[in-house]
């Protein structure tokens, strides 16, 4: 006959549950995974960068094919057509001052309430109609045109390919293994990648400023667009860390500094 004796459990030593502090476990994992992702990013970036340098034209074709294209036709007399006419006129004035290689550009205007402009890798410069509504003077609009031309001049599309594909590769690996944690990793990745695109935006801004000055001998209004944009931005939210573009106030500031340094301010900057 067996005898049952109730066990006195040692609650401090539950052998079924890990005694590791969860916060310490999280920290250790984050360090380990970050290191792994850094290696993956570096390898994929370096590999694609090498391919882009070897086959630049194929890289542009590939980028063009994966970027959504727009082919809109505007009604004669519409707001969009009016903006398109202004853009073409500005470009015609800028042409003789462009230090660019022989390349043709095509302007397109899309009806949108969001102020934005975008340089497509295939040479199409897209403008949202709202941008035209916001920018009444020619120089204000010319600055945005010149900025987009600056992206082509510096071949930013080509330079971004490696980063974009490194991001896609790493995101793919992350999405295969993560569920709820991907927001944090995604944000960390973007902050790493976007710091680079901010430099490119600054480079295009400086190119735009120089081109506007060379075309008009006047830079009054070049910062208007960014000043208007900054009115929509809440300062602590518009962090540079998580954005493809520098904050609008920062752009206004460095454009004014550059204009002063280059002597453009003899013509007053707004």
């Amino acid at each position, binding site marked *: *006959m*067996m005898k*049952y004796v*109730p*066990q006195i*459990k040692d*609650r401090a030593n*539950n052998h*079924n*549950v*890990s005694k*590791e502090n*969860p*916060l310490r*476990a*999280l920290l250790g*994992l*984050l360090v*380990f*995974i970050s290191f792994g992702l850094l290696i993956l990013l570096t390898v994929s970036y370096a590999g694609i960068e090498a391919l882009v340098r070897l086959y630049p034209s194929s890289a542009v074709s590939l980028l063009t094919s994966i970027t959504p294209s727009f082919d809109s036709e505007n009604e004669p007399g519409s707001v969009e057509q009016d903006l398109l006419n202004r853009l073409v006129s500005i470009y015609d004035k800028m042409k003789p001052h462009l230090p660019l290689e022989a390349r043709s550009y095509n302007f397109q205007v899309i009806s949108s309430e969001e102020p934005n402009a975008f340089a497509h890798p295939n040479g199409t410069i897209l403008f949202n109609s709202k941008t035209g509504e916001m920018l009444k003077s020619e120089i204000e609009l010319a600055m945005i045109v010149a900025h987009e031309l600056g992206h082509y001049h510096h071949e930013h599309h080509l330079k971004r390919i490696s980063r974009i594909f490194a991001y896609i590769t790493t995101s793919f690996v992350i999405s295969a*293994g*993560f*569920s*709820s*944690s991907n*927001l*944090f990793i995604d*944000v960390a990745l*973007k902050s790493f990648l976007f710091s680079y695109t901010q430099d490119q935006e600054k480079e295009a801004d400086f190119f735009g400023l120089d081109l506007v000055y060379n075309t008009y001998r006047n830079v009054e209004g070049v910062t208007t667009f960014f000043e208007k944009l900054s009115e929509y931005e809440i300062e602590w*939210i518009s*962090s540079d*860390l*998580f*954005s493809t573009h520098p904050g609008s106030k920062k752009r206004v500031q460095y454009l004014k500094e550059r204009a002063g340094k280059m002597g453009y301010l003899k013509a007053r900057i707004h």
Partner: protein
Amino acid sequence: MELISFIIALIFLVCMYFVGSYIEKLHYDSIHEREDKLANLPVVTFDKSYELSNIDKVDLVIGSAVISLDHFKRFLASLQALVGGRMSSYESLVDRARREAVLRMQEAAPGAEIILNVRIETSSIGSTAQQKQSVGSIEAIAYGTAIWK
């Protein structure tokens, strides 16, 4: 907007760590207290070695419990799943569910002499179709034959 999402998610994660830890502590306190109360009711896995004479009543008793991971542990688990190894964040979840199920089974047999042939099973429930890789909640079910004399 991404900065806002990041900050909100981070605050939420930290809050859920403290909330989850507190709820887990309360649950363990309850488990310990009830285990002490029910310590004299044997729960055993054998079925044939028991003297089956002078039995007043026999009945199947079942206890089941569903316990969910908190957000912090789910986040930690998703990181641990990537690199493999010991899933420490699930351990307390399984432990709590198993012990709670056994306690509920014992509580379903008030005055019993013993519970024989006890079996414990677990299953994952609450994972959505989009999140098949993650465990939403775990169910533990304990069942056995209660003997009254």
